[in-house]
């Protein structure tokens, strides 16, 4: 069964794109046919893979789904990893999905199940109609959290939203992102939150590392740059935890 994983958070700049790019790369390196869907109109993930969307592709094509979308999937420089690049017209995806007359993202994404074992979605921040659509389309929603009190608050907001909308809370899987262990607040927040079984944080945390920041310059996943770097190992561990023991391929 294909696993669809959304990288999501209400807050911006928390490491969603960094995680989507590096997790997708790790999945493909593990031998799984993998697709990365860049749904953020800013196209940061597409930028990291040096890919642009074709002029003919955009929001409307995406929402039609099916073969018309397939044509715009591009191979990355890495074996087994394809990407559906973002387009600037996605900034109005929200409005388009809002009128309810189109296909839902869940229907559109089901089409990828034949060709890919793992599908990662890089989402734009905020809670919108688009994010609700994503919540329904994804099997799991992986949420990077910078360990600050403010982040903890936004995370609780997300849980509340799920409760209000009758969405399945179990899909939400948070992990600590951009952790700076020399900061006392980071240590304290991690201690407090990871002790709380209700929050279900992954045990792997991604530290704050210059190599991740440098991806904007190298334009490649950290493991493609240095497979044994600290950052590469951290994302690989995160991938293994997400994949789980029985999904080895």
């Amino acid at each position: 069964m294909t696993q669809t994983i959304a990288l999501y958070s209400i807050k911006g700049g928390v490491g969603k794109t960094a995680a989507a790019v590096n997790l997708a790369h790790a999945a493909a390196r593990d031998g799984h046919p993998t697709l990365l869907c860049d749904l953020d109109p800013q196209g940061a993930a597409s930028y990291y893979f040096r890919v642009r969307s074709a002029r003919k592709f955009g929001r409307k094509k995406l929402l039609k789904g099916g073969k018309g979308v397939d044509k715009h999937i591009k191979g990355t420089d890495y074996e087994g990893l394809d990407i559906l690049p973002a387009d600037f017209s996605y900034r109005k995806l929200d409005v388009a999905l809002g009128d309810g007359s189109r296909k839902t993202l869940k229907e559109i994404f089901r089409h990828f199940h034949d060709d890919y074992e793992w599908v990662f979605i890089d989402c734009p921040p905020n809670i919108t109609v688009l994010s609700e659509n994503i919540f329904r389309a994804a099997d799991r929603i992986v949420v990077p959290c910078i360990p600050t009190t403010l982040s903890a608050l936004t995370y609780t907001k997300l849980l509340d939203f799920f409760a209000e909308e009758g969405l399945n809370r179990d899909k939400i899987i948070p992990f600590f992102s951009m952790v700076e262990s020399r900061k006392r607040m980071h240590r304290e927040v991690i201690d407090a939150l990871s002790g709380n079984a209700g929050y279900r944080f992954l045990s792997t945390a991604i530290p704050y590392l210059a190599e991740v920041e440098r991806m904007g310059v190298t334009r490649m996943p950290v493991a493609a740059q240095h497979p044994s770097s600290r950052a590469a190992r951290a994302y690989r561990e995160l991938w293994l935890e997400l994949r789980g023991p029985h999904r080895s391929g």
Partner: protein
Amino acid sequence: MEFLVPSSLDPDHLPAELARCGYRVREGRKSRHRFRLFDTFDWRLLSHGLELIQRRGRFHLHAADDGREIAYAPAAGSGKRAWLSHHFPDGPLRDALGKIIEIRAVLPLVDVTGEERTWEIRNADDKRVLRCRRRALHAARVTWRGDPHPPPPTDLPPPSPLHLLCVEPVTGYSKPVRDAETILDDQGLTHSTDRTEELFRQAGFDPAAPAKKPVLGLQPDWPAARATLEILRHQYRVARLNERGVLADLDTEFLHDFRVALRRSRSAMARIKKSLPPAATRHFRARLAEVARTSNRLRDLDVHLLQRDAYRQMLPPELHAGLDTFFALLAEERQHEFRKVVRYMRGADYRRTMDEWGAFLAVHDPQLPEAAGANALTPVRPLAEKTIAKACSRLLRRGRTIGPNAPDEALHALRLDCKKLRYLFEFFAELFPEGEIRPLIKRAKRLQDLLGEFNDLFVQRETLRHGLLRLAGDGPGSPPAEAIAAAAAAGGLITHLERRRSQVRRNFAKTFTAFEQCRHRRRFCPDD
């Protein structure tokens, strides 16, 4: 996409031209390759568009046209031997391969070594949009004990490496592929799908060599003797071609094909009346019958041993151990028979027969009056029609009398009639329009398959009964014949009862539901 290119094409041509189109070109590291190519004696993989290679301790099954990997499996051992499908580990490779090779063995044929250069073609964003590979492959025939192929001709030109150019597109980037195609088009190159076949040729093989459906080029107005000779020469070639494989015992098809060629030869001489000199015909028919006879038992045992898995599935598990004992005995007997056949085929008698026969076929000249049969110079087509008509009406006459109560012997006899007719169809197929003869051959083959199966079942049962008698033996310690008969009867019953039991088990659900759904039941015991 792969292109066979002349060695004169500069390896850097394509990358350089792409660079001129504005792409960024980066050459990757050079690498070396080494693998071994396999196929069955009758080129089954090649003719199904497949390529089986062994590389660094693994077998890989590829699609021959685009090199796409279909399956792989670990390969133990050096690979210098014949592999039957059950020698491969259970898994996707064995499944895919088994369907194609069936009971044939794959043989190590060609060792390929090569150098490879690769280029990454990138766009202005420095994104890879294409990959090019240039390979020079050297093919050398594998030498191994038991190689069933004829030794390579000595006048073979020294092999020159095969140059291949491979263009690998990246999903979503079609323009660079088109650009590469245009460049190669200008060089007059079109892409090729016969790299594997080319490698076989480089190593001195001829993968199109005598197949099961030969084209002999018979013409309707040829003198009958000339046509008969062509037919016989072909069968002679097939027989000789299979000798080495029979002796090396690589798979059971060598012996089978060898025997079929002998049988066809005898049949051609007997059916196509008086086209060759009667004395020679009589002589060679008798000699070939003798050759075939020495391997009759071996062939029966082969057929039997091939049934092993099928037998297993027929029997309930508790009888498997007994079956294994039984097959061990058969295998032992087969070894004995095989050695006998080898001794015979290496002996002077056999060699003389084959040499004489070959010489006769080579030099016989039907134009010389003293050598000719009475029909030697009549045109072959009318003679073929007459011969077919005769064999056909005989088959029809006999077949029509066979009712449900006819004795087994009648069916056995009909099998032989049918076989004769089918051989005639095959000999002469080229003389008639394809559409007239092929459907008929197909029907005749089906009829013969049915009769053949009837006969096989009979032979198998006989072999089993024989085996039982042998178990009894007469030495001290061997069980008495009565005990064995009793065990056989019990085994038969156990099997029958087991089959019945699983039938009954399957019926349970239906019968239970019928009770459950019965309207009247609800009157006493309503659903809650």
